Structures are given as C-alpha cells and as structure tokens.
C-alpha cells in the first residue's frame, strides 16, 4: 500500500538492544546528514531569499511586477496547466494497461516510460528541434501548413510533456501491481462495467499515489530548464518560462531580478515539500 515510506507516526516497536548502533555511530550519521542538508539545501535556499531582498522590499516587488516576469510566470502556469492533466491521463491509462493486461510489447512500454529519466533534458529538447525545427524531419510540412512549434509555446509544452510523462505512471505502476486485480475482479463479477470499476474501486485505492505523482509532475513541469531552454529561443516576454527568466536576468547581472524570480521557484519547492509530507502522512494514516 505504501509507495512512499515515511514512518511519520511511531507505529513501530522499539528496536531490541542487540540491533541498536552505539551512540557515537548514531550521532555521527545524524551530524553528517544534517550537515549535508544544510550545505546543499538550506544554505542555498536561504541565500536565495537573502539576495532577493538585498535591495529592499520595494526592489523585490518591482522586479516581480515587471512585464517580462509576469509573462514568464504566466507561461509557466499555462505550461503546467496543459502538461499536468495530460500526463495524469496518460499515466493512469498506462498504469492500467501495464498492470491489468498482458500484451506483446508490455515490457517495451514500461522501458519507454522510463526513457525521459535516462535522457539528458537538453537532449530531450534537442530531439524536438530535430523533429520540428526548420531543418527538422517535419520542418517542411510545418512551414507549408504555417504551424510553428520550435520557439513558441507549443514547443515548450511538447518538451515539458515529454520530460514529465513518467511521473504519474511510475507512482501508480508499482502500487497497482502490489494491490493486485482482485478487487477489480470482484467488482466485475458483481456486474459493474469496466468504467464503473475503475471509478469506484481502482481510483479510490490509488488516489494518494496519484496525487503524489501529480505533485511531482507539477513541480518538474514548472521547474524544467534544460529541455525548455533548447526549444524556446529565449524570446523575452513570449517564450521565457520562469526558470529561463532567472537565467536571462542573471546573465544581465540583474541580481535582484534573478533571485526574485528564483524565490518564487523556491517557494514552489517548499510548498511541494509541505504537500508531499501531508500526503505521506495521509497515506500512513490509512
């Protein structure tokens, strides 16, 4: 049942004496873990906030309310709004197919689902340029039909779609495999249609894992840099997402601007973390 394992409640009996590490081992490990987290996570996050407000609150707000920043935020939100629902749909469908049916090419599909994880994001973006760019495979066809993909929002959405499609599927597949199909078989034997079975039996059982997958998918969709950078063309005000906007500002030495935008992304990261913990807590409770 638990894809995410975090014993939030102390449901476990205390370990027997023989299995406990000596004190110095425990404290060393804890110290190392805390130092690592502080150095690589807390320190940078803190730095982002400090630098963003380094010229005062006024400067912070004006950096954020700049038209380019606002359109970057808008583009990021639109991208997430399109890719997350689509990838949720894809993820659920793929998980259902893989765990409930036997078909030729099943293992190929499972491997392909993991593909975006193994490919560098820059290469992922580059693939789209090779496909849809002016010199690409479909380049001529697209020009004929006056469709533009690369250097437009469509390209950004496509690239993000590719990057984030494993997230929901990867959360659901192990869970659904572990759960088995008996409840669904029971529902079918009682006369329920396939759709009704999915809605009333499967969905409630996978809802926390599904939400978790959606959360991860969203975090990545909003934060993706490499692939989007390749396909977007960095056209200020038009094809810059928020992560791209951070880079543009930083390259122009607009420190407050860069870190102000970065602080939004940092806030998103913290929010994701809070929601993730809440979801884990919910799952542990059940």
């Amino acid at each position, binding site marked *: 049942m638990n894809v995410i394992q975090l014993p939030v409640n102390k449901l476990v009996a205390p370990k027997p004496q023989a299995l406990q590490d000596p004190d110095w081992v425990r404290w060393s490990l804890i110290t190392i873990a805390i130092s690592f987290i502080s150095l690589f996570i807390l320190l940078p996050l803190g730095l982002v906030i400090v630098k963003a407000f380094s010229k005062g609150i006024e400067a912070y707000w004006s950096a954020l309310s700049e038209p380019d920043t606002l359109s970057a935020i808008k583009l990021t939100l639109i991208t997430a709004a399109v890719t997350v629902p689509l990838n949720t749909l894809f993820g659920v469908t793929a998980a259902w197919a893989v765990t409930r049916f036997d078909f030729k090419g099943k293992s190929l599909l499972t491997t392909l689902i993991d593909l975006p994880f193994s490919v560098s994001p820059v290469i992922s973006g580059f693939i789209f340029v090779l496909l849809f760019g002016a010199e690409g495979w479909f380049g001529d066809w697209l020009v004929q039909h006056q469709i533009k993909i690369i250097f437009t929002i469509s390209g950004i959405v496509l690239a993000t779609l590719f990057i984030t499609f494993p997230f929901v599927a990867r959360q659901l597949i192990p869970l659904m495999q572990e759960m088995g199909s008996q409840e669904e078989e029971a529902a079918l*034997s009682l006369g329920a249609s396939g759709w009704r079975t999915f809605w009333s039996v499967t969905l409630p059982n996978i809802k926390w894992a599904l939400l978790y997958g959606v959360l991860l998918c969203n975090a990545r969709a909003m934060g993706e840099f490499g692939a989007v950078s390749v396909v977007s063309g960095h056209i200020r005000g038009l094809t810059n997402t928020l992560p791209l906007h951070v880079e543009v500002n930083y390259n122009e030495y607009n420190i407050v601007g860069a870190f102000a935008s970065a602080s939004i992304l940092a806030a998103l990261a913290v929010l994701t973390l809070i929601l993730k913990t809440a979801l884990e807590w919910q799952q542990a409770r059940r």
Partner: protein
Amino acid sequence: MSILLSNISKQFGAFSALSNINLEIPEGELVALLGPSGCGKTTLLRIIAGLEQADKGRVLLSGVDKTTQNVSKRGIGFVFQHYALFRHMTVFENVAFGLRVKPRRERLDNETITKKVHALLELVQLDWLHDRYPDQLSGGQRQRIALARALAVEPSVLLLDEPFGALDASVRKDLRQWLRNLHHELNVTSIFVTHDQEEAMEVASQVVVLNHGRIEQQGTPSDIYDHPANAFVSRFIGQTNIFDMAEQDADWLQIAGLLPTQKESKIAHVRPHDIIIEKTSANQDAPATLKDWQHLGALIRLELVKNGSNANTPSVFAEMPNEQFKQLALSRGDKVALQIRQAHWFQ
C-alpha cells in the same frame, strides 16, 4: 443453474493447466473441486466465472452457451480466497455494491437496497458491523461479508475459491458447517475449490477430484471414499496404507488375510479402519509389532511395524475407536495379529 463444461482446455504458455475437462453440475448441488496445488482447480473455477477464457471448449450455464460472455453478465457470485473486499468502503457499501451498479432500469430504490443489505448482513449474522471498514474485521468476518456481497446480486451459481484457506483452523471448522447450512437454506448451486480433502468431504454433496488438469473422479463423498476410481484418488482421500505385492512379502500379506482379487492387480490400498488388530501371545509368530500410537480424540491411530522386514519398509497404520483400544490393553512393543477386511486393488 446447471453447469455443463464441454472439452475445456487451457494452457499458460507451455504449461497445460486443463486438458479436456468434461463436467456436469446439476442444479442446487454443493460441489467441491478438490486436488493438490497446481491441478487446475482454480483455473477451472475462473473459467466458469468468466475471469479466464478457455483455449478450447464450451461453458454452458443453464443450457446457454456463455463461453465468450463477460464475467459481469454471467449472473455468478464469486468469493475470493483473500476476500477482495473494497477496502475504502464500509461493510454496508461493500454488500450494496452489486445492487448499486445495476443498470438504471433494474436498479432498486435506496430504501429497498438498504433493506436488502441489512437482511443479508443478518443472514451472515454481522449486521452490527455494517459501518465498519474491512481492515477492522477479523478474517472470518471478512469472509462472511464477502459471501453476503456475492449473494446480494442473487447469483444463479456461487463460486468460492479456497474460501477458508486463509483462516485459522477453528474458524475454518465453524465456517464449513455454516456454509453447508447456508447452502441448505438458499439452495443456490455452489462450487468451491479446495486442496483440503477433509473439507471437501465434510461440506460438499458432490466431489470432483482433479490432478494435473484432468478429472480423476466425480461422485458423492461416500462414492469417492469407498470406491476410489484409481490409485491417486485412493491416496489423496483419507488415509491409506499401500502394499505392493511385488516389493513386499506376498506371504506376509497372506498371513494378514489379504489375497489379490485379480492376477494383474499388484498394489493394494487399505484404509486404516479396515485393519483389525488382535493381541497375540509372545511365543507365536506374529505378523506385526505395535511401535507407537496416537490419540486422535474418538479414534486411536496405531503404528505397526511388519515383523521380518528391514528397517526401511514403511509402517502400517491402523485405526480403531478409543474404547476398543482400551479394551485391548496393548503396550508398545506388543506383538499383534491383524486381519485386513478389504482392500482396493490397482495396477
């Protein structure tokens, strides 16, 4: 609903799970599909249900060919070994599920559904648990709820897959009796799968013995026990002593009063209660010595060693009622004479 299976075969890859199964189950019977693990009994049950499709053959329910029909339309009720209750629904909602998913024309109104569900829960004596969740119930309770859920849609045949396999021994005993009573009350044709021959013999009115995807024998429990069709059935059902004429001393068996009925039959299967024990005096040539005995409640099981055999020959097991054993007043190491009342001979 009567069930007719005609030439059913099923393969999983290279493994032949079922070969040419022909089975007829008349209406109203409580049938056990019995066999060792891997014999194909669960596969057969699932093919009847429609959860699996046979590679060859036909499934007829009440004379209608339902071989390719979807499980949701066959009018069957299925009870799973691990209950398969809907974990996020209350007991009430679990049982009501079948009634709620009926197409609009057939669906009953809420009040009627509520009444029916409570009636079913009363039937399984668990109405007081109606607002609990499955993970708050014991195994025995869950299984009864699973049964109530399957009965809610008034199936024409009830299929149970090792229904008591996951339960404690004492709960299993209670539920066996309970199922038998329920069947008498409701009279729905029921088929259950089990590897426990005691359970099959105790509960079912008809037993179908399967092995390696084939039917070995079909009959009432008395038929199967008293007249096993072949060596497998004889060994699988109840306790048996096996005497191979070729290996053991034919003389020894002759002293015990056992003669082969036909020339070709070489192997005798003897039930423990068909061996009659008498005490002999120490100076006589006795065929066997009492090595040990086990107290099984109403019966005593005696372990006998054949005199004049080497250490590796298997012991002979006899059974007699408690009282009789007390009267014989035997002790370990006593020599005994025995008489074999009857045997089943196989090749």
